[in-house]
């Protein structure tokens, strides 16, 4: 099987498992919705102000939602000693990582697809800048969170206090990406400045960290 064949197998497996229980997606959806509502209560923004802060709120909500799902995505590998089987399998470990990261990406993207219209409704938003750029920023930002998140969730697999560890490591490392996605989204919504720089930052961040994750996953998986 080719490398992409392996990635596709892993991806299909995760999609199948998630489809049967739909735990992660439901959890993420509801969690994001709650975060949005809580932030609205906290800030109570006017229409003009909401354009300034909606980007930040959206990405923070997604960050927290993704974190809750990412830990779960690896726990299904721990049941029935599946992880040991994965390590022994002849398929390249980075294919496992990539398949899982893509699956997580799809789940978070699904949550975004539901959340974004809600945002438009709650905050009475319409983009003053180039709205179509959001179709570029959203996937880039999501991949930045999901790629690193999947990797660090794997790092924390056999640690004690696993759920605590993921945000502790993920949030500092993701700060440039978070800055990029929030600034880009705010730029597009408010139209006050150019998002170009931030989009380029996101692309560079994604390239650097996807490469690092793919190269280092085997080391992390076999750490013993």
């Amino acid at each position, binding site marked *: 099987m080719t490398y992409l064949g392996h990635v596709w197998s892993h991806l299909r497996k995760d999609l199948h498992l998630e489809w049967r229980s739909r735990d992660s997606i439901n959890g993420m959806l509801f969690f994001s919705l709650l975060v949005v509502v809580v932030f609205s209560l906290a800030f109570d923004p006017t229409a003009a102000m909401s354009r300034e802060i909606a980007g930040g709120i959206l990405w923070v909500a997604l960050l927290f939602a993704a974190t809750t799902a990412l830990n779960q995505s690896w726990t299904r590998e721990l049941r029935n000693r599946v992880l040991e089987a994965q390590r022994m399998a002849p398929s390249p470990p980075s294919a496992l990582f990539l398949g899982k990261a893509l699956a997580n990406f799809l789940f978070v993207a699904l949550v975004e697809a539901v959340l974004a219209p809600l945002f438009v409704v709650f905050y009475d938003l319409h983009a003053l800048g180039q709205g179509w750029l959001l179709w570029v920023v959203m996937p880039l930002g999501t991949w930045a969170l999901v790629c*690193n998140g999947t990797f660090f969730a794997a*790092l*924390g697999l*056999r*640690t*004690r*206090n696993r759920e*605590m*560890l993921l945000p*502790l*490591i993920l*949030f*500092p*490392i993701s*700060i*440039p990406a978070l*800055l*990029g996605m929030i*600034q880009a989204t705010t730029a597009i919504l408010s139209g006050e*400045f150019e998002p170009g*720089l931030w989009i380029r*930052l996101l692309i*560079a*961040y994604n390239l*650097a*960290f996807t490469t*690092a994750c793919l190269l*280092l996953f085997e*080391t*992390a998986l076999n*750490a*013993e």
Partner: protein
Amino acid sequence: MPRSRILGPVGVAWFGLTLAAIIYATRMALVVAPTDALQGNVFRIIFYHVPHSMLSLVWPYVNLAASLGFLYWQRRDPLKALAADALAISAAEVTVVYGSICLLTGMLWGKVEWGIWWTWDYRLTSMLVLWLLYVAYLMLRKLSSTGQTQTLAAVLSVFAGIDVPIVYMSIRWWRTQHPSPIFFSGDPESKMDPSMMPAFLWNLSAWAAWGVFLLTMRYLLERRRQDNEQDAALKAIEDSLELTR
């Protein structure tokens, strides 16, 4: 690991000289350096704050180099890998210490001088993120199960190493794109009066020497701990062999 015969005397001498340098440097900072025209005596914290800030940007690279060394030697030469790992954790701890001092003294200075504890300008934010990254590193080391700790920490260190320049650039762009209050009138060193330079350089050298001392002590401590761990493991194996005989 046999005790080195030169390390002891060299260590004591280094400690003694470092202590003397610190005392001398502190005296220079507090007494000898002339009073700043604008800030009065409050500015003297610069002789403590700035060396720690500069040095806290050096130790992360020691950590990165040690982590890369660990990953390289892990399968090729496990004993060298152990030493590299000991250096990595020592450098991470020294980074957190120096970073904390930088942040705390900076906040004190800012509060007295400009009336604010904090601002999100690029230098402070980058420093905070660096500090967060290395605290995360130490947390990972603490929480991960033994056997895995070293590898996982080394991997995280590589990530942090890639992240630090990205953080610096991204935050710099963030803070030059929006107008933000400029509380630091440029790089203080560029405006430092030549009469203050000796005090500054003495402090930089003294605190660098102190940092090296801390690093080495922590490294030796870690090596000692690794040795004890290996001895205990060996004893456990030997004991189990005796049982089966």
